[in-house]
Structures are given as C-alpha cells and as structure tokens.
C-alpha cells in the first residue's frame, strides 16, 4: 500500500472482544459484525486498490444507537470510520485496522415528503435515486445525479458533496441540501436547519457537506426537490480536433446558454464506449460532445438551434440531434457506461477527478498525452466539459509488477497539472486517501492548518475518520496556539492600534 494509514493502536486492538461486547449491548442482534469472513464486504469502498478489514463493523438503526456508539468510542479513544453505501472513489470509507466501521445502511427510511415546501426529509442510507423515485409521481426529482446514483446513499452524497452530469445547471449536493441531524464524535446530537432556505448563524450545513465523514455522522437529511423539466433533448457533436470541441464549449457558455449537461469524450473513450453499447458514436472524430438542453419544448428547440449553429461555427464534423427519448438515452448510454466500457479494454483502470478552467482543456489533454507516453500507459478521457471536471481513466494491469505504482504516479502528475493550470485536485470524488498526500500541491501548511483547526471544533481528539483528507495530523492544542508576535513584531515601524 503506497499510502500510509495511522499506525494501529495495539492497546485498542487488545481490548477487541470487550469492545465488540460493548457494541452488542448498544446495537443488539445482527447489528454488530466481527467475523473475519463477514467483515470482508466492508474492507474497501469504490477505490478497490486499497483494502483493510476493520476491527469491527457496527450497523445501528437509530440516532440514539449512533450517539451511544460514538460516545462509547469517544470515551475510550477508539477510532470510527463512517460508511454509507461504500461507493466512494477516493477511499473515504476505507476502514482502519483498529477502528470501528460505522455503517449507516440501516437508515433506509424516507421520513417525510413535503411537496408544499418542496423538500424530502430522509435517513442517510436511502439511495440518491430512491429519493427521485419517491417523488416522481408528482413530477418532482432530486437534482444531483452522481453516476452511482442507483447505489450511492444520500448520506454519502452529503459527506462527499457529490456532483453529477447535471450539476452544471442544478448545482452539487451542497446547493441542494437544507438541513440535517448529525452526531458529533462525543455522541452529542445536533440539528441544523430544516425546511427554510437558509439557516441561522454560521453555515454549519455548508461545512459538513463535503467534509468526507471527518466532522460528524449524519442521521437525517432535508433535501430540496425540483419539478422535472418538461422535456430534454441532446445533441451529439463530433470534432476532428479536441481544441475545436473545447472552443465550442466556451462559446456555448459565452453565449449565455447553460445546458443541463455538457460532456466530452476523447477518441479512446469514444471507441471503448461504442464497442460496449453501440450508441452510434462516430469513430472518426477526436472529440465528441454530448450537450443536453432541458426545459419547455419551445425553449429546448430554440437552444438546440443555437447550439447547432455554434458547433458548426467551431467546425464540427458531425451533429446528431435526438428526436425521441430513446435516442437521447442512447446518446447518453455510451457516456454513462464509459467506466465499465474502459474496464473491458483494460484489466484495471484508475479514474482521476481534477477540475481545470474550461479554457485550459486543450493544454490539459496535450499534457495528459505526453504523460501517457512517459509512463507507457494508455488513457481514455471523459470530461464534464461544462464545468471543467476531467475524468482521465488510466489503463493498467495490476498483475504486472510495478504497473499500479506507475499508474498512481501518472495520476498524481495529472492532478499536479490541473493545479498548475489553475484548477483543483478533485471536482467531485473527494480527497479521501487517494489525493490526501497531494493536498500540499494546492494548499500551504497555513491553509491546511486552518482546515484542521475547524476539524478540532468538531472532533478535538481526531477520532472520526482519521488518516483521510489531511496528509499530516496535528494535535489540536498545537494548532490552536496563537503566536503572539508582540514585542518582536516583524515591522515594528508600522503604526499600531
């Protein structure tokens, strides 16, 4: 394992049977799993290259049980890793050898659907898609749509601030959640917000969203729901040059059009997807854009015309416009199956997730090609073009000695390149363990210390999901110290108050 996790606490491990018994007293029946065979199911999340069985798995089904489990662990200095459906691609739910894995899978109930206030109050283990399904009969849906939406839990979505194809127009998770109930590491249960558009005080909901399970355990969430657009149509546009496709994206946005989704695939991704789903993708192009417009028919028709004109102006070599739902879904089928499609042409692949300014796309793709040469590994690119979120898929074979390490080094270089181009390490998959050690590429020690101080406000002992997000762990007391520069001020001639 290339990424080091915090050393296991032998004192905790030596008390394992006592801990298991105590957890059984809190969560009776099948809610505590301690057999090696059964715990195998929890040893990794979507980042399967990293595996680690936990000390014990606990699956509470009430907030009170979550609170008791955390209180018990807090009092005894036992680490806890929260987990939703385990679909994280960055290792956010990777267990710790000396940690309790706290699964929220039993929190499966939608508690309230309130159409008048346009919200759903749900438990965190409910899947993303199930929320949309529960309100579909009234024409509503929950907008963020990560590709894993049939499996991923809404609690995990909040922890990771999940995005999806439609977040260009409708926002990420953070723009679509209003409130939650969550439990601090010491067992304290807090409620934030509710059905109002804004909460009083500091935006604690905003900071919990995307905190990757390091600040608290969410036990209830209130999400906004929207009315489904009347219709949606898609264009599938081919380009002989990646640069032309990039220019097309910029011009569409520049013309004031925010499509429901705007995706790009490069040649290797197009070929892999076409071989897999036969969506009718053109095979002679270097880049393919799928652009979806949604809204009333009258608006969609007009915008389709405008986008088509822009695409032609950028030298598109092919342009198909969906004329039915079936055709629109077919356009998407290849893009949505891009990951498994690439899985068919390579024994293993690593999915990266950097974001760059849209305008830097041609530069980024050129750099990725160079790196592909350097590392002698293939790469296929799919790209949320509308918001600059790149997903290079690095192809490798874990059975060949050294290839995985090479793939990881390749991936790290891609992310460094994203930061150099003015972008960021992760657009939607999270830092987790995967990008943890790259955080200094983007943040200084001062930046990271400020983030870790915030962690201290929630979990001063650092027991909740340690080893994720931050490359170095500091003690809270040390982080909280104010260095008084008094008496020896760097610029003593500056007037002071």
């Amino acid at each position, binding site marked *: 394992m290339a990424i080091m996790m915090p050393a296991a606490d032998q004192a905790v491990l030596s008390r394992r049977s006592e801990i298991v018994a105590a957890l059984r007293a809190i969560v009776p029946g099948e809610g505590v799993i301690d057999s090696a065979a059964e715990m195998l199911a929890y040893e990794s999340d979507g980042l399967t290259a990293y595996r680690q069985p936990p000390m014990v798995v606990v699956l509470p089904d009430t907030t009170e049980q979550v609170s008791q489990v955390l209180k018990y662990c807090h009092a005894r200095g036992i680490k806890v890793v929260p987990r939703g459906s385990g679909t994280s691609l960055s290792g956010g739910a990777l267990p710790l050898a000396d940690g309790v894995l706290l699964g929220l899978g039993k929190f499966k109930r939608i508690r309230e659907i309130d159409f*008048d*206030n*346009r919200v759903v109050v749900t438990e965190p283990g409910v899947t993303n898609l199930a929320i949309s399904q529960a309100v579909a009969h009234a*024409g509503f849906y929950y907008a963020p749509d990560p590709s894993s939406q049939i499996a991923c839990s809404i609690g995990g979505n909040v922890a990771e601030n999940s995005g999806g194809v439609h977040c260009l127009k409708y926002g990420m998770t953070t*723009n679509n959640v209003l409130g939650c109930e969550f439990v601090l590491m010491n067992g304290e249960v*807090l*409620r934030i917000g509710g059905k*109002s*558009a*804004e909460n*009083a*005080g*500091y*935006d*604690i909901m*905003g*900071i919990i*969203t*995307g905190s990757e399970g390091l600040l608290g355990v969410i036990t209830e969430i209130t999400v906004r729901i929207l009315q*489904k657009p*009347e219709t949606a149509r898609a264009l599938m546009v081919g380009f002989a040059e990646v640069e032309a496709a990039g220019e097309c994206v910029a011009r569409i946005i*520049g013309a*004031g059009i925010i499509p429901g989704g705007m995706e790009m695939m490069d040649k290797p991704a197009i070929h892999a997807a076409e071989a897999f789903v036969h969506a009718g993708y053109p095979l002679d192009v270097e880049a393919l854009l799928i652009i979806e417009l949604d809204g*009333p028919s009258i*608006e969609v028709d007009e915008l389709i015309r405008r986008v088509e004109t822009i695409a032609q102006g950028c030298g598109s070599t092919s342009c198909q416009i969906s004329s039915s739902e079936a055709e629109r879904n077919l356009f998407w089928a290849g893009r949505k199956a891009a990951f498994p499609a690439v899985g068919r042409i390579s024994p293993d692949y690593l999915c990266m997730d950097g*974001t760059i*300014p*849209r*305008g830097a796309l041609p530069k980024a793709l050129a750099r990725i090609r160079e790196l592909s040469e350097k590392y002698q590994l293939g790469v296929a690119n799919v790209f*949320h073009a509308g*918001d*600059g979120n790149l997903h290079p898929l690095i192809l490798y074979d874990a059975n060949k000695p050294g290839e995985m390490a090479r793939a990881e080094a390749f991936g790290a270089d891609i992310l460094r390149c994203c930061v150099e181009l*003015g*972008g*960021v*390490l*992760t*657009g*939607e998959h999270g*830092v987790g363990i995967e990008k943890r050690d790259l*955080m200094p590429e*983007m*943040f200084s020690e*001062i*930046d990271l*210390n*400020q*983030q870790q101080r*915030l962690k201290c*406000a*929630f979990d001063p002992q650092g027991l909740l999901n340690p080893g994720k997000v931050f490359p170095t762990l500091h003690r809270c007391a040390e982080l*909280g110290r*104010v260095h*008084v*520069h*008094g008496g020896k*001020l760097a610029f003593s001639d500056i*007037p*002071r*108050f």
Partner: protein
Amino acid sequence: MDIRKVRDAADVEQAVRAAIAAEQPLEIIGHGSRREIGHPMATNAVVDLSALNAVVSYEPNELIITVEAGAPLADVQSLIDARNQQFAFEPVDTSVLLGTKGSGTIGGMIGVGLAGSRRIKSGGVRDHLLGAHAVSGFGDSFKTGGKVVKNVTGYDLCKLLSGSWGTLAVMTEVTLKVMPKPEAERTLILRGLDDVAANRAMTAALGSPFDVSGAAHLPNSALRPTDAALAPLGAPEQAVTLLRLEGIAASAAHRAASLAKALAPYGAVETIEDAVSLSIWSALRDVTPFAANGALGAWPVWRIVCPPASGGALGQAVARETGGDVIYDWGGGLIWVAVPPKADAQRAQVRGRVEAAGGHATLIRASEEVRRAVDVFHPQPRGLADLSERVRQSFDPKNILNRGRLTRGTAS
C-alpha cells in the same frame, strides 16, 4: 477612531497581528455601508479594505470573476453587466433600508450574505462564492476553494465565510460565480389575495414545472401611494402577488401563459414585462416599502426566514400581534416585517411566532439602543451555539475580528 487603510493581504496580516499583541479587537469594514446591522462593537480600531479594490481577473467564458474584497459592488456589477452577466443571487442593496449611501463592497456583500428574490431558484451568496483568500484571527493569510465552479478539495470554508459578518476572517480576494442574464422576463400579477391565499398561489407556482424565479406578495398595507418604485404596479388599494419567469423570450412568454392558466383559481392574471418587471423586482429585493426615507422609515425591520409554505400564516400572525407591516418573498420563505417602534423591537412577539413555525428572525434595522438590548441574530439552541463558538474560535481564538457583532454582551 483609528482607521487603518490596508493595501494588501500583508497589511491585513500585520494589522491583525498587532491587534493580537495589543489585545485590541478590530472592526472590519469596506465602505461601512452595513455597519448599522448587528450589535454595536466596543472598539475604535478599524481596518478599512476599501483600497483593496482591484478586479484581479474576469473570465466571462469561465463564468467566474476574481476581485479584491474591497471592490465596490456597483462597479463589479456594471463590469459583468457589460458582458451580459450577473450575480444570480441578486445581492440586496441595504442602503435603501438603512438610509446609507452606496451598495458597499464585494466583501461586505459576502459577509452579510443577503440574497434577493432569485434565491429560490439560483441559491444565495454562499452558493456562488467559489474561493477566497482571507486573513484569520491568527494573523495568517490562508486560501480556500479555487477558481473553478466544481471543487471538493478540502473543507468548503467559503460557506462559513459567507454570512459570517466579518467574524471569522478578513477576506482579501474572492472568486465568485457569475451567470448569464436572462434574455427576457415576465411577471404575472394577481390582485386582492390575502396573505394565506397568496402563499397558496405562490406554493402552486413554485411546485409547477414553469421554473418560477421570483414569488413575492405585497399586502395592501405595504403598498403606499408615495412609493414611486412600485408605482408601475398600479392602484395600491389591493394586495399584489407577483410571479417571475425568466429565460429566452419565447420560453418566458410560453411559461407565463401556462402558469397564468394554472393560477386561474386564484383570480385574473395581469402581466408585466422586461424593464418594468425588472424595476419592480429590484425594488422588492431592496425592500423599498420599508425604505429609510419612506413612511415606515423609523420602524425597526425584521427579516424572517421560514419554511415557505407556512409564510402566509406566520406573517399574518406577526403583523397582527405587532401592529406591523409585512411583505413576502421566496414564495413565503422570506418575510420582511416593519414593526411600530418599541424598546425591544417587539422581539418576543416576532421570535415567539417565528420559532413555532421553524424559522429564524434577524433584526436588520434598529436604533443602536435597541441593538444593545435585543439579540440581533437569532439565538441558537445550546449545542449548536456551542459548536458555532468553537468554529469561531478555530478561526479567531482571541476574538479580534468584529468582536461582539453577532452576540449580545460579548463586545468587551
């Protein structure tokens, strides 16, 4: 008063470090246009960011703009307006309510976090702040977020900075998302509905697929013949309920017609368009019915945020109990209340009702005396208040920045 005009982030760092050494709290201002909101602060040491006012970069095709925190909001708005873009959250110009001059700075806009009518569709200030450089109460400059619209790298400290009233860190440079301006707008007007019926009509509209981007209600008591800004609405004898549809012209017109049909049970619908509609929503955003220079200029003003579908009943009850006037935005989820002056701005009457409805209330306008006596910001339950205080300390343990502005009795 000791005013230190800073020119860069290093100046701010020095000012904060000096303040730590001298155990001297600092008031942080841009143009000072919102100083009269919040508890009076016990400091005469001011850090003035108005000279930190450059536009660092504006990239319309990337939908982002990076500016220094002291940049004037009005200037930045004209700059993006020239490229047919806007801040989609419609920042409130508080000068109308407060009787101050100018709409202040970008830093002030983020610090107060007050969004206008489009919040129901496009989100608030917090949803558009993508990245920031700021100086914490440790005297250290840090950055958070980035210059791209999609980013989950590290904690999203931008959310905390938005609406923190300058208590966590001094922002020096910020990156905001900008959005294309709609090509056309239509506003439907329903007349004569009482607050509860209007709330139902707005709920129906917001639950429709017609993508409503503004839903407001003005009871007739809030409509005064002298209010020029709202004159285009016509006769002030009757309450008006307003529903805005924006987009390309054909779409806005189509949706306006469809929504008018759907709202038929609530009465006849009139339509206003484009420039007229724009001026009405701009007046509503800035709460002109309660303007400082208007008939109710001497009355304290509360801003209530509540679950939208309960707004009508809540506003009616608050108006009845306080003898005040109310106007509704966000489909009922935002209620502005002007109350006849009393020493406590009728805190108990307002907050009692609001809490029962699951909302919260901020005292946006009141005399300094009242703001010393009443919690300006809605008190939080114990556990959450404690957590918020720990969060504040994680940025500013010596309580240097805007000490006492948010919490009564903590100024010294």
